[in-house]
């Protein structure tokens, strides 16, 4: 291999990749190391990167000052209910617009796509008023009910998948006299599993990281989610960076684990977008 080619195909890419990787990784390193420093150490100049001794007690303190376990539970309940809702509704709708030959399929698909660009703020206030009139403020209902009607992105994602499943699969069952609901639940749903996993994963991430929704609908601290708890922690212990970083790490860990174990589903969603052209 010539020197020029080596430079072009190996040295240059690796140098750039390492440089960028450094920028992307270092904040994590800083997050974790700050969370393990003592309160004096974080205000030390010049700073040391590694803590002198690992202060695991910061994590204990974060759990003791704020009921993070309780917030975690509240968050998980919302996540699970949303997943159930999405897995019920989104595939049904996607099936209707991709595998049932009826006039509405194209129209509904067009409206589903159009709602993707509709800013949610336009509906926010009347939705709040509806939920307030129903007495649903301070409950998880406003944060979860929407999932039972499907979401544009998931409907789109599942539609892409469904279009890839051969028509012959359902036609053979139809010959045998199976009803559409049977075909849907016993033939199509099982083949749709990887896509359903993606929907479940993203629904979880969406509900877990949501901030504005809980901020608007949950006032009672006992009902708070992790995002609200973390923000509340910032309010009360603003300058205690070591504890704040410990709490942030706690909050980030489930997302990082999900990402490591479900990487292929993340990649799938990336390629789904290319179907837009």
């Amino acid at each position, binding site marked *: 291999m010539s020197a020029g080619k080596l430079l072009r195909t190996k040295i240059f890419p690796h140098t750039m990749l390492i440089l960028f990787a450094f920028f992307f990784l270092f904040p994590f390193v800083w997050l974790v190391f700050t969370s393990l420093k003592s309160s004096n150490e974080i205000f030390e100049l010049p700073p040391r990167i590694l803590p002198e001794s690992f202060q695991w007690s910061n994590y204990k303190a974060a759990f003791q000052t704020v009921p993070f376990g309780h917030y975690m539970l509240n968050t998980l309940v919302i996540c699970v209910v949303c997943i159930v809702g999405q897995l019920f509704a989104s595939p049904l709708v996607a099936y209707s617009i991709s595998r049932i030959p009826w006039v509405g399929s194209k129209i509904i698909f067009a409206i589903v796509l159009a709602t993707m660009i509709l800013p949610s703020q336009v509906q926010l206030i009347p939705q709040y008023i509806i939920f307030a009139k129903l007495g649903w403020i301070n409950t998880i209902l406003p944060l979860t009910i929407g999932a039972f009607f499907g979401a544009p992105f998931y*409907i789109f994602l599942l539609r892409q998948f469904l279009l890839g499943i051969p028509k012959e699969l359902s036609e053979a069952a139809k010959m045998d006299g199976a009803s559409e609901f049977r075909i849907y639940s016993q033939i199509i749903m099982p083949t749709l599993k990887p896509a359903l996993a993606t929907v479940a994963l993203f629904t979880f991430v969406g509900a877990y990281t949501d901030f504005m929704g809980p901020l608007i609908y949950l006032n009672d601290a006992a009902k708070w989610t992790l*995002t609200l708890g973390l923000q509340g922690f910032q309010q009360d212990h603003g300058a205690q960076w070591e504890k704040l970083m410990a709490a942030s790490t706690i909050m980030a860990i489930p997302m990082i684990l999900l990402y490591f174990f479900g990487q292929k589903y993340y990649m799938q969603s990336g390629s789904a977008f290319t179907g837009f052209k």
Partner: protein
Amino acid sequence: MLETISSAAPRRRRGWTRKEWHYFWLGLIFASPWIIGFLIFTVYPFFSSLYFSLTEYDLFNPPKWVGMDNYAAIMKDRSFYKSISNTLFMAFISVPVTLFSSLLIALLLNFKVKGIRYYRTIFYLPAVIPGVASALLWTWMLNPDFGLVNIFLRWVHLPDPAWLLDPRFTKPSLILMGLWGSGAGALIFLAALQGVPQTYYEAAQVDGANWWHRFWRITVPALSPIILFQLIMGLIGAFQIFTESYILAGGKSSGGALGGPGQSLLFYAVNLYQEAFINLKMGYASALAWILFVIVMLITLLVLKTSKRWVYYGGE
């Protein structure tokens, strides 16, 4: 689009066979969750917010009709203009910068070198961190005295701004944070990049086109539909920036007022939230929401219109 259903249906219905009816009802039943949700949570709120925008409403007393008063008041509201200019700054500077960074990372990830999987994992990682946590991390990273960013800048003898405390630097702080998360967009670009037929590049190479030419003549046109998609989603996203601003500006701890120093982080959605849920001016906030809707639609249409000149759809 709703009209097309009702106007087209009677014309065609007469000739429908039993099978067509059968599929019509089936399709309707399968799609019904979305149709019901769309009517209750999109269509109804969409129009009722138009009604509320013409009233004065604080949730406790019945709405009072005020005509165009809210809109007139908004036109004289300095916070409104501040929020518009802050938001446009993010839309026209942050969105293209982040898009460019995503594309750059995607190009790097498209290199065929060892260990590329690990790099891909690293670049996407920041995007999975919950917004609240990453905003807090960056508040600490950008701490004027003890933050890592300024420690580094001082070390290389560059000026060390006060970042989140200085109105001139709050939005650049937000852009920096956005760049950190630009791996998410990169993944979408990467998927598209890997779909570009290799033969295009080989043919260009035979013709003697250099790297730069190949990038502009093949890669960019091939990616243009995805660039358009990400641009539109980014612009719409800019009008909905909320969590980052709320956290970086210190939330309620900053004396009840949101928006950070000198209102430099008062974005459209933050202003709307403040009017609706802190000042309880639901009518006024609904008017803001409708103005937002019009702006977003105009920008989207404008981008789509100009896109005809620079977006290439492959002849597949």
